[in-house]
């Protein structure tokens, strides 16, 4: 059994197989109290699957997923569709999976800026408003661990900044761990302690570079956003080709890319802010993202 100082949730070389295909494999990941872990990766890279393993919704086909005993979870799924036949107001939505003190519900709704919609039915909310309602519901539970699957999708840019600020504030206030899936491949929350890049396996992990350090990004995002957003710069030594094969830095091409093959680079800390990778292009040549569409650019 895990001790209180242990991670809230720990995945150890966990993978999910469906009809002979590995959706994701060899994932090592842990989230501790007060820690924000961000998952990034292209579509179909297994981000949501990994989150569901961490939540216990999916049982890993190999490896293990261990959660702390009595862990209180607040989950914001990627999407929920609420049928017309369901009369569900925002206020009632707050206590969907457990009793919530009215004061906590009100505070959560005020913090996310949906207080004025509390008597509205959730199906009538816009996409961004519904995301806020889901986030409010997760917060109102006062969870030990929040799992947020693209929590800012459909939210406009300034709203995105304020929701990221809110997530950080909640983390600071109640000291929960946060497992966050980013909808953006490169831009993550500045408060992120650890970024894990997935593409069917863990490609690389490290800490993000604060936008504030880079004048160019500061200009791009604006002064307020640059305090909240960060950039995760990553180069890979292999590229996933359109046909599923993998081209490596040395030019060789193999059928598959397994986590235990040692293809993926694993620099200490993967922190690009302090040093430069000689031989690597420091621009965002994320081979996996473009590789899926057939236009892969190799870093080599």
């Amino acid at each position, binding site marked *: 059994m895990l001790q209180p100082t242990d991670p809230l949730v720990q995945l150890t070389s966990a993978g999910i197989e469906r009809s002979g295909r590995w959706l994701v494999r060899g994932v090592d990941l842990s989230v501790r109290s007060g820690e924000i872990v961000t998952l990034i990766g292209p579509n179909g890279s297994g981000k949501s699957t990994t989150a*569901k393993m961490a*939540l*216990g*919704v999916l049982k890993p086909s190999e490896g293990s997923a261990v959660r702390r005993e009595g*862990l*209180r*979870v*607040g*989950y914001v*799924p990627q999407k*929920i569709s*609420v*049928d017309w*036949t*369901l*009369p*569900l*107001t925002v206020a*009632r939505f707050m206590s*969907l*999976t*457990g009793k919530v003190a009215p004061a906590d519900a009100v505070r959560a709704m005020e913090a996310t800026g949906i207080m004025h919609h*509390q*008597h509205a*039915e959730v199906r009538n909310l816009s996409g961004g408003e519904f995301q806020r309602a889901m986030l409010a519901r997760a917060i109102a*539970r006062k969870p030990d661990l929040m*799992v947020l699957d693209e929590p800012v999708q459909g939210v406009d840019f300034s709203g995105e900044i304020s929701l990221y600020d809110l997530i950080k504030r909640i983390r600071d206030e109640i000291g929960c761990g946060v497992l966050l899936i980013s909808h953006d491949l490169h831009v993550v929350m500045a408060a992120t302690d650890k970024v894990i890049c997935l593409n069917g396996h863990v490609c690389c992990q490290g800490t993000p570079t604060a936008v504030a350090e880079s004048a160019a990004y500061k200009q791009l995002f604006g002064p307020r956003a640059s305090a909240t957003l960060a950039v995760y710069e990553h180069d890979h030594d292999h590229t996933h080709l359109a046909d599923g094969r993998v081209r490596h830095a040395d030019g060789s091409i193999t059928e598959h890319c397994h986590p235990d093959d040692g293809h993926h680079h694993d620099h200490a800390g993967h922190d690009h802010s302090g040093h430069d990778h000689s031989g690597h292009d420091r621009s965002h040549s994320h081979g996996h993202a473009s590789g899926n569409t057939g236009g892969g650019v190799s870093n080599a």
Partner: protein
Amino acid sequence: MLDDYFTRAILAGIGMAVVAGPLGCFIVWRRLAYFGDTLSHAALLGVAMAFLFQINVTLAVFVVSAAVSVALVLLQRRATLSSDALLGLLSHSSLALGLVVLSSMTWLRIDLMGFLFGDILSVSRLDIGIIWGGGLAVLAVLVLIWRPLFAATVNQELAEAEGMNPDRANFIFMLLMATVIAISMKIVGVLLITAMLIIPAAAARRFACGPEQMAIIAILMGATSVGLGLGASREWDTQSGPAIVVAALGLFLISLTPLAAWLANIRISKAAAPAARE
């Protein structure tokens, strides 16, 4: 008071509406309308089994309905066919099996119409006791599993992730449905049970602004339909079971008028008023 057949019919009907309302809401929310049909058809197989093995009809109907529910859950896990295809498969095969078994017992002449449409005017005091006793027991269990069942209705994974046990709640819900089909079959008959589950709940939707509220309004709708239907059947000497359903249909049609939206709006503004004062 219970000496009057009409009073007994009203009591039995209202007892059924009380339990059908909240269950019917879940049927509507989960798009399981065809599940009610499937269970009703399975009930016919239950009737056939009861005659074949000389056992109590209600018990046999419950056993067969529960078996079909469990079969559905197990087949859904396999996930080779979609739910509606599975429901169709179970529905038609249990109906056909029931008819085959019934027709094989050539010495038996039973009134199929009676089981299809029921006879609420012939319920005994014991029937009323069973309906209310069984109905309240079903409601008590439903209250216990309400939160996980409702959370799973909104989103199964969310409920599971946050430490609920939606599979157990779903399974209990299926058994409750089988129980209700078994105890109410004699009153409205198998074909009309589905109607009593769905129509009052559907009629309640536009008046409701919360799930619990919708369940209570569905009960009131069902009870009103029973009263109106039985009254009309006495007045104009029509069949009582179908008359109840027609009355429920009338209420549903009323719910489509602006009246329902107007009533719901009043409640929302009432609910909003105290919040605005804060």
